[in-house]
């Protein structure tokens, strides 16, 4: 096992983000959204941040060049709109091996500044 399992439980964040009309429309155009509402996957612009930072944590011992995104889960509780202020925190939930593959799982939660949970993400990366 090359990944450092001691990092299970390590937290990343908070990361702040403000949704803008321009970034929502830009994202919607990229994913061919059918309307101008913020696409659910717009969450990637802010909720993914702890996952990205955790993977680059030097103590994780992860060879980024061998990493692939293996799985994704989202729960949406509220609609994001232009001007939405979002705070995101994340935590390494699990690190494990299955055969020759190693997995790292990061849970991420995005909230409004007053603490209302907007969405949760669970990111699984695999090192091949």
């Amino acid at each position, binding site marked *: 096992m090359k990944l450092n399992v001691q990092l299970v439980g390590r937290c990343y964040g908070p990361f702040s983000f403000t949704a803008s009309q321009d970034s929502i429309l830009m994202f919607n155009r*990229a*994913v*061919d959204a059918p309307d101008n509402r913020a*696409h*659910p996957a717009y969450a*990637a612009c802010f909720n993914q941040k702890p996952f990205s930072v955790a993977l680059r944590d030097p103590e994780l011992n992860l060879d980024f060049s061998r990493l692939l*995104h293996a*799985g994704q889960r989202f729960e949406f509780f509220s609609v994001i709109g232009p001007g939405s202020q979002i705070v995101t925190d994340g935590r390494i939930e699990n690190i494990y091996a299955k055969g020759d593959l190693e997995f790292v799982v990061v849970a991420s939660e995005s909230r409004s500044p007053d603490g209302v949970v907007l969405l949760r993400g669970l990111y699984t990366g695999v090192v091949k």
Partner: protein
Amino acid sequence: MNASVMQFVGSNFAMKNKPFEFRIGHSHTVCKFISPETPVRYAEASGDRNPLHLDAEAATQRGLGGAVLHGMCSMAFMLSGLMLLCGESVFIRDVDLRFSFPVIPGEVVVFKYVVARTEPGRLEFAVSARNSAGREVLKNVRVGAVIRNSSQEHTI
């Protein structure tokens, strides 16, 4: 893709022109052409500039045979197709999936949406996603949605 039964809708989406019925077992298929510029557009929009998606040489060195689409972009297209089918009457509540095979820009991905479960005000879809060669690119896809109701959502 059978052109006689598919109509292009929006940008590079094709679907049969029939309503999606929210009853268990009902299915609908949407085809999505992944244009070559998609990874660059998605990288600019999302901030995910992993060379694997933008640099063919870097991706080839990893045995991928060229730059591949972001997995999250595949997921987003899957959701866009469902939103096209359902219109503004539903709110995507949750999604769960595995990225099982890379999507290569220039190919067509066929998404098949099946109504797997219905409850009052709530729907669950099972989705398959296959590339031009018939290989599954997303696996174990489940999407939960709620029927839009002003009491069930709020915008911050």
